[in-house]
């Protein structure tokens, strides 16, 4: 299209189609103004720098037009953000979370908020006050949790990507059970400002996608320093676009065999072994590593996370926002209002964890429970640091079993908690971790393969993940009912 013939509709089509960049168009017109306005004097002010900067902004929108679903524990301005809880029914935040602003600036389109276990506490999305989400691969089964809605949405093709949160496995586990990619970044890689806090030292926001390259693209937009989050790293993230195709020649992968000995479904173990073999065929070196304190990860997690949660959820008191219980009679005071509001507003699992956490922090028990758990947490981290002297990533199944039926474990919280055995270590240590699809069981239920990496080394996980994904026979599988 010749410059002289440029029209609004022509430019729009050319820029959208990638034939022209916004900067090219802008520069052309600025040059024309410079060449002609001496004679015409049509302009009083020319915004050369500002216009070019704006054009660059328009060009640099890596997620332009990409629909994204956002887990309902992340603030979206003016849009209900319920945390899957009745206590925030209808609550509309007056601000966007940092991750949401970044997605919008990148041109993404937020298509909706996804269902989750209440306040992200759960592994099945059965604890949502708004009803459970179903697994697209088998509608009578759980999608996993707490980011069950986010995983199911991607698996069923409702959105090409979603963002979830992971405190003890809540991105990776549902990703595994729904057959998609789920990435928990290093603690501090992504800002938590605007994330309704569950456990402040464990929470992280991350992407759920069909492919590893997609996960990298979304992480690139989410990651980076944020002056509003004092726990976010001040280092800018690396360029993740040059990782693909992923090459694993010489990459060392460690397996904590002892941890896999008990309680893992045989089909999960088989899929795990097959994935390792595939990577080995592509040049990776697989060896054993010893993580002796990993056996304490679940008990440590179930002391530290509820303790922090009991404090983080204290603000839901009915005074300023959310549900407030109706009181009968003027005799009722603030204490009664608090008690009734929170009894009515919180579900059973949340109440369980608040009580556990309050107990672990209380006078006389603080040292024996909370402090002790935090100390063991350091030991778990030391194990991984030692392992990373010899390997580049640690591999484990994401979950011990594929998706169980809705209702199957709802009355057995402990059984539910024990399912987190492979995921909680990454949260306790702050290390990045990814769950990758690794095939289906006989019953056509997805299985996840997990990698844990060095701090801020998401790149290695993405590289290995891409290598596994390429030519993997299961990569084109889709849930039959939602293909």
């Amino acid at each position, binding site marked *: 299209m010749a410059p002289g013939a440029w029209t609004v509709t022509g430019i729009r089509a050319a820029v959208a189609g990638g034939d022209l960049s916004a900067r090219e168009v802008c520069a052309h017109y600025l040059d024309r103004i410079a060449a002609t306005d001496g004679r015409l004097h049509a302009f009083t002010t020319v915004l050369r720098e500002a216009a070019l900067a704006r054009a660059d902004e328009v060009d640099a929108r890596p997620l332009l037009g990409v629909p994204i679903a956002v887990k309902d524990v992340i*603030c979206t301005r003016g849009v209900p953000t319920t945390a899957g809880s009745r206590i925030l029914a209808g609550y509309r935040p007056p601000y966007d979370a940092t991750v949401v602003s970044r997605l919008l600036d990148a041109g993404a389109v937020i298509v909706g908020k996804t269902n989750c276990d209440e306040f992200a506490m759960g592994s099945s999305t059965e604890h949502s006050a708004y009803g459970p989400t179903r697994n697209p691969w088998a509608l009578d089964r759980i999608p996993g949790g707490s980011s069950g809605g986010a995983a199911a949405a991607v698996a069923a093709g409702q959105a090409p990507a979603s963002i979830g949160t992971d405190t003890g496995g809540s991105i990776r586990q549902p990703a595994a059970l729904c057959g998609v990619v789920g990435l928990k970044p290093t603690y501090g890689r992504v800002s938590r400002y605007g994330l309704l806090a569950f456990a402040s030292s464990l929470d992280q926001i991350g992407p759920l996608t069909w492919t590893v390259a997609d996960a990298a693209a979304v992480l690139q937009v989410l990651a980076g320093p944020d002056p*509003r989050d*004092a*726990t976010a790293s001040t280092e800018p993230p690396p360029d993740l676009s040059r990782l693909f195709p992923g090459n694993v020649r010489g990459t060392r992968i460690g397996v904590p065999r002892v941890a896999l000995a008990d309680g893992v479904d045989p089909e999960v173990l088989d899929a795990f072994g097959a994935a390792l073999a595939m990577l080995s065929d592509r040049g990776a070196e697989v060896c054993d590593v010893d993580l002796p304190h990993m056996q304490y990860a679940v008990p440590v997690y179930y002391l530290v996370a509820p303790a922090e949660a009991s404090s983080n959820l204290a603000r839901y*008191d009915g*005074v*300023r926002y959310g549900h407030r219980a109706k009181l009968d009679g003027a005799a009722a005071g*603030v204490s009664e209002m608090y008690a009734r509001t929170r009894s009515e507003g919180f579900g059973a699992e949340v109440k369980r964890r608040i009580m556990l956490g309050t107990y672990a922090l209380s006078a006389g028990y*603080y040292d024996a429970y909370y402090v002790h758990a935090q100390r063991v947490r350091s030991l778990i981290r030391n194990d991984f640091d030692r392992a990373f002297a010899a390997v580049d990533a640690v591999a484990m199944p994401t979950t011990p079993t594929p998706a169980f039926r809705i209702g199957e474990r709802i009355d057995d919280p402990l059984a539910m908690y024990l399912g987190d055995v492979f995921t909680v270590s990454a949260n306790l240590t702050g290390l990045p971790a990814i769950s990758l699809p690794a095939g289906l069981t006989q019953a056509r239920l997805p299985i996840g393969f997990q990698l844990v990496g060095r701090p801020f080394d998401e790149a290695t996980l993405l590289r290995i993940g891409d290598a596994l994904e390429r030519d993997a026979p299961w990569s084109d599988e889709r849930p039959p009912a939602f293909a």
Partner: protein
Amino acid sequence: MQYETVIGLEVHVQLHTRSKMFCGCPADYQAAEPNTRTCPVCLGLPGALPVINRRAVEYTVLTGLALNCRIPEFTKFDRKNYPYPDLMKGYQISQYDLPLALDGFLEIDGDTQLGLGRRRIGVERVHLEEDVAKLQHFPGEGYSLVDVNRSGVPLMEVVSKPDMRSAEEARQYLTLLHSIVQYLGVSTGNMQDGNFRCDANVSIRPVGSQILGTRTEVKNMNSFRAVYQALEYEVVRQREVIEDGGAVVQETRGWIEEREVTVSQRSKEYAHDYRYFPEPDLPPLRIGPERVAELAAELPEFAPQRSARFQADLALSGYDADLLAGSRSMANYFETTLTLAATAKEVANWMLGDLARLLNQDHREIDASPVTPQRLADLLALVADGTLSTSLAKTVLEEMYATGGEPADIVREQGLGQISDTGAIEAAVAEAIAANPKAVADYISGKDTAARFLMGQVMRLTKGQAQPELALRLVQEGLELQKTRGSLEP
């Protein structure tokens, strides 16, 4: 039975930073409309996170240094958990076991009535936390209002050791602490506005006993005087309880100003379990020795030292020196004026006399004085070189204060220069003598005071501008001449 009083003070000082402790909201909430200094962070909205105000940390370290504290290299924030409608998050971010400053002291003169002299009062710790929102209650109406403006304002807490032995010693400690925070500029330290709050822990024990008695906490003392009175009252109350055979109950008592009594507020037996744990949203801080040294270099000379120097070097009286050193801006104004070539006594008199009077009338601080040190020095120079009499200078000062003008300009515009031209005064002398024959007669018959009267007349005739000494001399000469003439009369 003789009893000894044991008092410890906890003082909360609101820091004079531009923004709040953990967010960017303006910290100046006093005059703002309710709920206009808020954001998701200080409102405790879901998803909000705190970020540390660096200046507040520096102010606290400076205060710790001024109180002779140790500044540990490693410090952190902790959550203090309890539910109340004025606490937005359901927890207050404070400091528990690793505060910013520890183990300091202040030197007070001591309560001489108890035979106690100059000694150190221990400062246990200085730590940093956030203030809470303000509640307004309407008894009987069935609702209360919350103003969140104050939520998140930085609060520095100074905890003393229980080293004070009387209300007088508490008053001395408080006054000195107040002076220090004002001098540092870390707080305006205004008790009435609520930025300098004092709670006291009081107990008594038999003299010689090493065991502490049961203590009560006394709150709601809103002035230094209230602190003094409340402590005096509480000590007497506790002694009477014990002498009546009872035991002091550990509780919180509020000072009721109107009735001048303390009243039980709630029992402290079930002390709230705050479940302190390290704040996971904020990284711990490392304040290295280099940074501490940099901050220590910023410490000014405080009031007691400055006053002592004024007395020693400038021969000012203790009273004047204390007043001038009382605030950092006063002391700076004073010293600046001195560098502009004036004498200490002169400047002191004018600052503490006429200038203070004018400032007080307007409730102005010396920083806001239209009479700058330069202008004051110029005015004093005009007095020194004889251009102005002291009383005329006072008039000029009033004009300077009202208009912000230069003294020389005012003198010129109003023709106020002292007349020292003999001839001009002689005319007035002649007129005064001619108009007051009785005074002349009095003088001749021996009443020397008549000369003063006539001098007054001369001053009136010259609109106060005659140089007084010269006028008196000329009057006396004129009267002597009259005397001589009179004696020459046949």
